[in-house]
């Protein structure tokens, strides 16, 4: 049984915009699944249909074999959603928000209060439980939405850009929490613009662009298709001419920085040896971009050559 099964899903909004053009997708139970795509690709529409906030024009969505369209109530009881935008009453206290959310899933109040303490503590919000939510920081508000989504202890947790605008420390603590939830058996679907997170967290991936799935595979296979990597080299002395190394593309970014693109099978030792021979000393080196980002850009650019930027 799949945690999520999407069959030939289409959505055309009343203004004529075709947001989804027949998407089909399966997410295995227990998976940590990345759903990536540039802005306006259709990710949020897809999540909206899964969570019943958006009506599909045609096609079918099943959550744990339960049709969202025909058995909405049962399907929704399996889902926890962390939306992209803040959508809680900012005049209420975190404790009220999470306990009420549990009530909407039929969870009796005493149980809801226990769960509220458990998840607010795990997300480092317990000391803010009685504060007015409006006074919380951006990172706290994001964590509050995760705590709220956990109140029905969902089998499928959907996170729509949950770390947008959150500093790196809080982001990492959020991912530790989500990884733990996934390890306990909850299926997680993640959309994010921080592709290094998707690369390090997710086992499977779908890339969506212009309402169509342009790639749907496991992360390892996808990364294996990357045959060229680009490195940025910081030099000790300035250079006047661009060095040439056989089998590698080298460009000068400034007089003390080079960018070297080389096939994955070529050793970096060859690059350093050749530069050394030409009297160029490398001080430090880093990846130009993470591997998934390179692949993502390549796939999206291929799908839409005129696009200037993505992600």
């Amino acid at each position, binding site marked *: 049984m799949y945690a999520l099964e999407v069959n030939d899903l289409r959505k055309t909004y009343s203004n004529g915009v075709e947001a989804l053009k027949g998407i089909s997708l399966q997410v295995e139970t227990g998976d940590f699944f990345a759903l990536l795509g540039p802005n306006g690709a259709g990710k949020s529409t897809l999540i909206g249909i899964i969570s*019943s906030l*958006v009506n599909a024009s045609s096609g079918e969505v099943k959550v744990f074999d339960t049709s969202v369209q025909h058995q909405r109530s049962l399907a929704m009881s399996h889902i926890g959603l962390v939306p992209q935008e803040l*959508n809680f009453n900012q005049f209420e206290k975190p404790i009220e928000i999470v306990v009420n959310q549990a009530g909407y899933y*039929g969870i009796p109040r005493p149980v809801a209060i226990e769960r509220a303490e458990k998840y607010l503590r795990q997300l480092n919000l317990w000391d803010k439980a009685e504060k007015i939510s409006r006074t919380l920081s951006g990172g706290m508000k994001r964590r509050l939405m995760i705590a709220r989504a956990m109140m029905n202890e969902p089998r499928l947790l959907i996170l729509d850009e949950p770390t947008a605008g959150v500093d790196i420390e809080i982001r990492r603590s959020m991912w530790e929490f989500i990884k733990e939830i996934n390890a306990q058996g909850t299926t997680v679907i993640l959309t994010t613009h921080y592709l290094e997170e998707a690369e390090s967290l997710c086992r499977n991936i779908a890339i969506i662009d212009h309402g169509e799935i342009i790639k749907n595979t496991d992360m390892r296979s996808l990364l294996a298709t990357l045959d060229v990597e680009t490195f940025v080299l910081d030099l000790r002395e300035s250079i006047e001419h661009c060095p040439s190394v056989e089998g590698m593309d080298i460009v000068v970014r400034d007089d003390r920085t080079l960018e070297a693109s080389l096939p994955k099978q070529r050793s970096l030792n060859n690059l350093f040896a050749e530069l050394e021979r030409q009297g160029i000393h490398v001080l430090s080196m880093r990846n130009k971009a993470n591997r998934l980002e390179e692949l993502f850009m390549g796939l999206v650019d291929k799908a839409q050559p005129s696009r200037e930027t993505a992600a």
Partner: protein
Amino acid sequence: MSNNLLWVGYVTIVRKEITRILRIWGQTIVPPAITMTLYFIIFGELIGRRIGEMGGFTYMQYIVPGLIIMSVITNSYGNMVSSFFGAKFGKHIEELLISPLPNWVILAGYVTGAVARGLMVGTVVMAVSLFFTPIEVQHPLIMFTVLLLTAVVFALAGMVNAIFAQKFDDIAIIPTFVLAPLTYLGGVFYSISLLPEFWQKVSVANPILYMVNGFRYGMLGVSDVSLAMTYGVILVAGGILFFACLYLLNRGTGLRS
């Protein structure tokens, strides 16, 4: 779908709504009490003494039922429209829309909250009225049922307004340009027997006339219309509005894309 889900969900919405009403009591309970006190002083005491009797009662006694039900109508409607539209505007209505709760439970929860505010304010206004004139309730059951059903009707009407509203201006138009004129012309301050025949005929097309007079009958035992018409108008209006709300919620009008 378990009864536990339905009941706990319903109670949660009602609790949330009542907590909201009490949290902002300075906006929800106090203003109508002050407004109605001014009505009692100006229309009941100062002007009413010169008017004399109406329907066999002092003018103050005559307007008390009308002012109570006017405040119930305004507050049931106002609570629903501001709370539901506020949830829609702030997007926290999505908390309910993604939950397993069926739409009729969401509707019932919000209506109960709105009725609760109407009854709270009605009770406060009635208490204020006792400072100005003694009232002997003639038919308590009729008084209560008319009050309760009227509050339900206007809570449902408020829901329709909130569903269609897209900006805050949209929730002020109906109360200002429809509700207020119909209420003031619905016999709150006078008996329609005082009107010329033509305007009496026009007045009977106003549904609020039946609610005001039904409630007045419950309190004082006098009415310009029959009790059967009062209950008939309220039940028909309530039924139409209930199914309209449910239809709109099921379609996702104004809520789901």
